């Protein structure tokens, strides 16, 4: 299994994500520039958090025009696993790979805190190493993490069991306490909390490791399925 970690101009959690998936979780992974046009040879694409192009207009609004995005869409359409974290989540919604949008936190403040979450669906490629309804704590660090979708979209999301992580103590105003959700097909997940910041006990916890281990388990069976 080989993972691509995308890096956009101005990205700043790309190295953190690479470290988590490669050095800690032990997967084969490398950085792929958003200026590249191919995802050939990868079984998993990770879209990092942080900021892209400064995010001055709206988070993720400019990143969706990066050259790599066409390849990313094809990759996802062919069933490849895609994980977007924080800004990565925002980019995936902007690009239409996930439903809804991320709006300013209701407090209008950036919030950096460890946040208690519940794993409400452990039957996905991103969460199979957690117990159903397991309580975990992952750090959040965002200003625009307030999940919004219109009423119809929201009920469809719920009916399809697309929500994977919910906040125990909603910090940002997200509808239905949504912290992370998949697309309908279940191969693309976006989440605001940062699992890559919770993979080492020295740095305060390992609750995020399960996300990477789940993906490693899921892609083992389906090696190179998405090429």
């Amino acid at each position, binding site marked *: 299994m080989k993972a691509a970690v995308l890096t956009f*101009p*101005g*990205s*700043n*959690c790309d*190295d*953190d994500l690479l*470290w*988590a998936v490669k050095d800690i979780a032990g997967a084969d992974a490398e950085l792929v520039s958003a200026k590249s046009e191919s995802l050939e040879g990868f079984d998993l694409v990770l879209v990092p958090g*942080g*900021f892209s*192009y*400064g*995010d*001055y207009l709206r988070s993720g609004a400019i990143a969706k025009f990066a050259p790599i995005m066409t390849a990313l869409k094809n990759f996802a359409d062919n069933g490849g696993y895609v994980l977007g974290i924080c800004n990565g989540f925002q980019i995936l919604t902007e690009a239409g790979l996930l439903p809804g949008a991320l709006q300013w936190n209701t407090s209008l*403040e*950036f*919030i*950096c*805190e460890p946040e208690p979450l519940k794993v409400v669906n452990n039957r996905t490629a991103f969460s199979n190493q957690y117990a159903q309804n397991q309580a975990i704590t992952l*750090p959040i*660090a965002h*200003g625009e993490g307030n999940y919004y979708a219109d009423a119809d979209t929201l009920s469809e999301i719920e009916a399809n069991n697309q929500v994977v992580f919910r906040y125990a103590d909603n910090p940002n105003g997200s509808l239905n306490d949504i912290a992370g959700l998949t697309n309908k097909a279940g191969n693309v997940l976006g989440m605001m909390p*940062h699992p*890559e*910041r919770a993979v*080492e006990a*020295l*740095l*305060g916890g390992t609750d995020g490791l399960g996300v990477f281990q789940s993906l490693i388990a899921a892609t083992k069976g389906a090696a190179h399925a998405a090429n």
Partner: protein
Amino acid sequence: MLQTELTPEQIRDQKPYLQLGLTEAEYNLFAERLGRLPNYTEMGLQSGMWSEHCSYKYSKPILKTFWTKNDRVLMGPGEGAGVIRIGEGKAVVFKAESHNHPSAVEPYEGAATGIGGIIRDIFSIGAKPVASLDALAFGDEFDAHNKNLIDQVVAGIGGYGNAIGIPTVAGEVQFDPGYQKNPLVNAMTVGVMDEKDIQKGKAAGVGNAIIYVGAKTGRDGINGASFASAEFSDAEDADRSAVQVGDPFMEKLLTDACLEVTHDHKDALVGIQDMGAAGLVSSSAEMASKAGYGMTMDLDLIPQREPGMTPFEIMLSESQERMLLCIRAGHEQEILDLFKGYDLDAVVCGRVEDGHQYRLLHHGEVVCDIPVSLLTDDVPTYTTVPEKPERLKNPAPDFEPVIEDLAATYKQLLAMPNIASKRSLYRRYDAQVQTNTVIAPGGDAGVIRVRDTHKALAMTADSNGRLLALDPEIGGAITVAEAARNLVATGAEPLGITDCLNYGDPSKPEVYYELQQSAKGIVAATKKFNTPVISGNVSLYNETDHHGIHPTPMIGMVGLIEDLTAITTVDFKQAGDIVYLAGNTGDDYNGSSLQYLQTGAYAGRLTGFDLEAEKQTQDLVLTLIREHLVNAAHDLSDGGLAAAIVEMGAKRELGLIADTTLTTTQLFSETQGRFLLTVKPEDQAAFEAIAKDQAVQLGVVSTGDFDLKLADGELNTQMSQLTTIYSEALACALK
């Protein structure tokens, strides 16, 4: 800005330089050394370079007294930032910078560009910035203006730091009437690098290229350096054009690109420097002067955001996110291509020349032709005859507090803005990006693991203006001691310091006295703790309508942790752990939070500080932590023992059962040099064998009860009752 430029003769007669902060004597001296009357551009360059901000004309004699070298220091003051060896071929780089005036005028952008500026100082040395700190001081009257100021300063620091991806891991926020009109916004950045990659800001070698890279030059912030060196007047609005907008996206690209140049293009790189105060002129003139060369630049080649900029404007603009490089002739294209790969504007704008003339061309004309040293070295320095301020000649009598209702006093203390948790503010900073943060804000110091080593760095920023107001010398020493105490509490050995000297108008004898005396205290303490000053910054003229701030040296200190398994945090870990108090407690209430609570002022002489005893206690605590005998440690500062206990209990809402010979008022005494430590029961014997009588047992951590038996009273409550006040008071006050 003047539309048509004055002739040299008109400048002499009309004296426009007075508005730019130069005195008539300075202008005359410049003209005399030049051997002719300076033209308008030259006079402008002089005003920028001879400002206090660039030339340190008042502070140089003070700075000279600082202790700046020991065997670990690789580079001391004088460059963009200082460098200290940390072993395994690595070095730590750090510096602090003040952005007080810009933040007072435009809080969001002022604070944001303060962070941006200090980051450039760090990567210009070749170091990857790994953490930032912010030291803030505001007035304590929470009117609408002040609330907005606080909100916007915090938003600006986060807005820049979060976007560029450097964690903010520690800092401080103080509230005091002395800062109501002159808030302090000091920022510090820490970088890590390989020793062998250290870069300097120099432009050497005839024919080598001067390359400009980064944002285009605009009319924003023109002459900010002389602006920072002038006093505020409430009536004046004209300063407002000095606002610059930060672009952290651009800076992220610049950081990555410049680090690639310093690491992978050593053959090409001669020197690199950021454009800070007095923009292009200070960076280029300093680079030439340090290397002993001359330089010619063609201003038509400088990327400009607006048409029709004059040489004066181009040279003195303080547009952000710009760097200047000196590149060996023949390597220009390689470097231009590298920047292009990052979508950055880079141009060759000049050449290094023999001799020592600093020449600027504009539209084919020579608009400046002067010796470099006239800008950088020939600046006169000033000393004022110091005079002890009246208030220090006759200090108020020692404060003798009386506490009638301990529980009520305790709660009031915890709700004081200076004591209450600052979490609602620092939670707006990304503290974890780069995934190295071992201790985020909320501990005694921020701690960052150093990748590829077994080490970590601890860092803190402290200031104590209210104590310096009572005694600048002792207060200065205390500030250094407190910073060291904060590092030691995490298990770090202090390495060195950076500082921001925030003071009033140095031409006033009383202010100069404060500067001089506090430097004396700082020097004594830095020698005691083996922490040389490796970089710093001076911010004078923090006055509004002739009323100055407290003398406020901000001390940023960095320490080294050799063993990642011996890092200690402040929070109580488990009921049953034994709590010790290290260091003696006296009756020291002058300048204390209790005094302010009960009288509304800080007054009296400073007591309760003993540099030697402090050092001994710190050494003991460090030894105990390194022996793995301590599982929580916290230094005592504002609010004394009372505040420290609640700070330790807050995270897990664990309480304390204690029986002590201390008195009720001593619970609030602010004797320096003390720590609270917790020890697992199984480690008690080993702990006591080392600590002997230097630490006394205070009590035992409990599941939630807080029962305190004192010599003359007692307190029985739940820890949660107190931690709720501690956690929520400031957020409520600022709503």
